[in-house]
């Protein structure tokens, strides 16, 4: 546990040092947020509310969805893949720590730094430029924090699993691009899931993707209540366990195949 904490802290500090890159990313996120907001305002036209989401809430949504990008490394994450290709993985596997958990620690550290510099910042910028909604009470804030933490873990499980493809192919980047692409439109990142036809929502719910983005956003907006809310959080936890077990299984099969070239 102490090691876990240390790894997380290290990677938190490392991420904090990329100040210029973070600032630049922030500008892009903000621009895309504005764009999405304009599109959604045009879609709403004269409707005050659609599928239980008010115009004000949907504008907030565009900020939240942009905020998740950095937090979840939503566009690109190839660290495990890279370490397989470079052979660094050999050193990691020799260490008496669990491979999955040491990467999880690092990813949580990275996510925490990204949360401060990117996610929280963009929401502050949004609060300045737009009339946004905020969680109404301490209880909702706490649930939001829990859901956000869970969403990072679900997303990590998925990214880790996808990266393991590197054990089987000399170029897993195509697979990564495909897997990440899927997560964009099945997670409620491009549009709130509630706007889709029922069959599509059901399809999304068969995947872990809504647990990465949609759930956390709906907790923030307060559209989830009572048993629905409990079920959503529980679903997140179940996906973490499933992805963890799958990763374990795939990792074991992969390590058996692994050949490290030279030193």
């Amino acid at each position: 546990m102490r090691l876990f904490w240390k790894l997380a802290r290290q990677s938190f500090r490392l991420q904090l040092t990329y100040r210029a890159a973070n600032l630049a990313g922030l500008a892009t996120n903000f621009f895309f947020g504005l764009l999405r907001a304009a599109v959604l305002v045009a879609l709403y036209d004269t409707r005050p509310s659609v599928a239980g989401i008010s115009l004000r809430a949907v504008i907030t949504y565009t900020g939240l969805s942009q905020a998740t990008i950095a937090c979840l490394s939503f566009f690109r994450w190839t660290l495990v893949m890279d370490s397989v290709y470079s052979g660094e993985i050999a050193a990691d596997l020799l260490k008496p720590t669990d491979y999955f958990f040491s990467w999880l620690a690092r990813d949580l550290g990275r996510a925490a730094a990204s949360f401060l510099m990117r996610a929280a910042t963009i929401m502050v910028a949004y609060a300045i430029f737009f009339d946004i909604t905020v969680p109404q009470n301490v209880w909702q804030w706490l649930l939001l924090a829990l859901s956000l933490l869970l969403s990072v873990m679900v997303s990590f499980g998925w990214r880790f699993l996808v990266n393991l493809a590197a054990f089987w192919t000399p170029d897993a980047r195509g697979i990564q691009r495909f897997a990440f692409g899927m997560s964009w439109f099945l997670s409620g990142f491009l549009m709130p899931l509630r706007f889709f036809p029922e069959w599509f929502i059901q399809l999304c719910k068969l995947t872990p993707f809504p647990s990465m983005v949609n759930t956390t956003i709906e907790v923030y907006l307060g559209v989830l209540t009572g048993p629905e809310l409990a079920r959503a959080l529980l679903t997140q936890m179940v996906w973490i366990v499933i992805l963890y077990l799958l990763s374990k299984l795939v990792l074991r099969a992969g390590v058996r195949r692994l050949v490290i070239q030279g030193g």
Partner: protein
Amino acid sequence: MRALLRAIDLYRRLIRVQIQSQLVYRASFLFDLLAVCLGHVGEFGTLALVLQQFEGIGGWALVEVALLYGIVSTAFGVMDLFFGGFDPGGFGQLVRRGSFDQLLLRPVSITVQVLGSKFWLRRLGRISQGAVILAIALAHVRWTVVKALYLPVVFVSVVLFFGALFIMGATVTFWTIESIEAVNILTYGGSEMMSYPMHIYSQGLRRFFTYIVPAIFVPYYPALFILDKPDPLGMPSFAVLLSPVVGVGMMAIALAFWRFGIRYYASTGT
């Protein structure tokens, strides 16, 4: 004339080598292509589902938006295929590592070398997706001879417009070394923005993309003409014809800036 022929020959060789090398891992390549294609299909698919639920956007029906989206997506893909060497992200790396100096030392045109340096066949994924959407949209257009003649002109203009942004973004890295994010906003942000009927944006944003970066004339106004829609923004009627002017003009400016940049380029020393 001989210099031109030599440049064309060199360009062909550069491209051929790259195509060969990309086809070595055939399975990996096909998967990559499929991934890119499905990614974009999914993106438009989700947009289409939502547009259908909302019954269009800004007075445009789904097939009408599809025309705009199809033109922009296909043209951006084609541009990315041919101008990939100027992609500011990758080009910035070239400058940072000093590899650009190596190119400068060779006794052939630097522009041709950069043009032929990144020819990613996987861009065909986006191009084919865009082409299919465009084809569906075009089937719903009421055609006239003028429209049919103007459409290819518009298409080339959009390609040139995005290519110009790439070249300018690449040139900026001579000074900034890093690729600057503002360029990504213009290229990737621009292509997403131009995929929607642009009258939906706020006045400030619209003014910027009319008078500073005249993106609005490239696909939006011609699309109004092709779809027989009135102009909600009240521009003079020749706005429809500005697409090639902007496309060619932007490219001319970009190339001039590029030459200027090369003349003043001082290596990073790495």
